[in-house]
């Protein structure tokens, strides 16, 4: 039942975006998000939309699949649109009904803000769609590495994240087993009121927690037995390396900054 759930959204592949270094992808996202908020007219938005679509093309994933990532947020986008249309005033009045008006500025803001949201979501899902969780963790660890100097345990946090990712399938299987065992004892998880169903989750959650703690303890012992002693003096098997792809990402970033800076009003 739970076995087919993918971890994150990662779709394995060999495209340009898949093979770019996670660090450059992460840095690019930060830059792109800033540019989205700097965009303030039709031309700059058009450039950003064009760029996002081109990036989507580069990922070699189907556009409809990428657009699916907007699904969880469309209510938020709709809400923003409605709010702006009704509340933001200014410019030509397009529509009037009693005290209620729809004005030029409102429509403009509604379109721009929903575009901002949409673009942000799309570009960050391109990251998670083309980067495996392990690479993402490693990229984050390396980017945040300097924070280690001011006492933030970056290595430990990254290791915790990668172990958590590694144990997701194991704990899923376990949940599946517990659900079956409790069902065999007559528990009912599929009917009754919402409160009743929520209460029924307790006999799943408790054994799961108990076993997770036991696993954690055993894992810690196994790690120690294999000579784990924290991040000091540790080497890594997969060293992230920048390639020509990351050079292209850097060049594209510079061009984007110049173009947006030039066209924005």
């Amino acid at each position: 039942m739970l076995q087919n759930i993918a971890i994150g959204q990662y779709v394995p592949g060999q495209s340009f975006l898949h093979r770019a270094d996670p660090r450059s992808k992460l840095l690019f996202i930060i830059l792109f998000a800033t540019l989205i908020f700097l965009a303030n007219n039709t031309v700059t938005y058009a450039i950003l939309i064009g760029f996002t679509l081109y990036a989507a093309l580069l990922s070699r994933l189907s556009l409809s699949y990428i657009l699916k990532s907007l699904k969880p947020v469309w209510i938020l986008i709709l809400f923003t649109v409605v709010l702006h249309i009704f509340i933001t005033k200014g410019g030509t009045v397009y529509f009037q009904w009693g005290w209620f008006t729809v004005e030029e500025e409102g429509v403009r803001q509604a379109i721009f803000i929903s575009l901002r949201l949409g673009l942000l979501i799309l570009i960050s899902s391109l990251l998670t769609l083309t980067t495996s969780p392990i690479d993402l963790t490693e990229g984050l660890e390396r980017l945040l590495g300097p924070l280690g100097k001011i006492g933030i345990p970056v290595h430990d946090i990254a290791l915790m994240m990668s172990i958590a990712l590694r144990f997701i399938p194991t704990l899923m299987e376990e949940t599946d087993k517990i659900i079956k065992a409790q069902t065999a004892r007559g528990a009912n998880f599929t009917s009754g009121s919402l409160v009743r169903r929520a209460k029924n989750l307790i006999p799943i959650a408790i054994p799961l927690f108990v076993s997770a703690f036991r696993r954690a303890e055993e894992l810690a012992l196994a790690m120690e037995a294999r000579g784990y002693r924290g991040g000091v003096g540790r080497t890594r098997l997969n060293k992230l390396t920048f390639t020509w792809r990351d050079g292209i990402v850097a060049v594209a970033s510079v061009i984007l900054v110049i173009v947006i800076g030039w066209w924005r009003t």
Partner: protein
Amino acid sequence: MNEDNLLALRDVSYTYDGEDGQRVPVLQGVDLTIQKGSFVSVLGHNGSGKSTMAKLMNALLLPEGGTVLISGMDTKDGELLWEIRRHVGMVFQNPDNQIVGATVEDDVAFGLENMGVDPKEMRDRIDEALVSVGMESYLQAQPHRLSGGQKQRVAIAGIMAMRPSVIILDEATAMLDPQGRMEVLNLARQLNRDEGLTIINITHFPEEAIYSDKVIVMNAGEVLMEGTPSEVFNEVDRLKQVGLDVPFAVRLRHALHSKGIDLPFVLHQEELVEHVCKLLLTK
């Protein structure tokens, strides 16, 4: 210090804190010597102290009394801790709870990363270790897609990559199906034979002990018996007294013996079959 004595426990004792604050002794006055390159089985009941003994050999626990020596290194010497852990690898009972990496390759690399091995050398050592356990075609596989026996083999590869001299299997076969158990045991015997590794197999399956050079029987924190499999399993009644079973062939021969049918002592089922056939033919 004799070079051949790879592992030595000298008058070792250890005490756990019980649930009601009482001190529960788990090991008392254990004296053991394990020869380099031997295959040793440790048999014993739950709570006989056999797992504690394993943890003492890898410096996961330190003895309260006595000393544990690994190739002459005292486990109490903090400076030698990492060297000892590299020398003595441990495979635990639950295959899921000892795999750290998200892929087979990452997991085998874990111990090497801890040791600070150069990434270029790491690649070679990982390949070598995976070949030695016959898992080389699973380099990129995710651990949860493997069978129990395969997971334990990956765990062994993770230790092999660190080039140890001893591998302790701490009930490593207890959670496996019969096929997985065979896989792991055959691998352990092969590593012992071909690579000259010392193997210490802690188990409660007497069948697993028949191929070993030496069998150690633990009971209530003490070494009850020590000897070759034939010596140990010959004392069926004494083993039964402490609630331990013997291999099938030994049990059957013992039962026949008490019915007045006399057969020579054997450990392996095939040998017993031969003897029984011979007896039937000569009658």
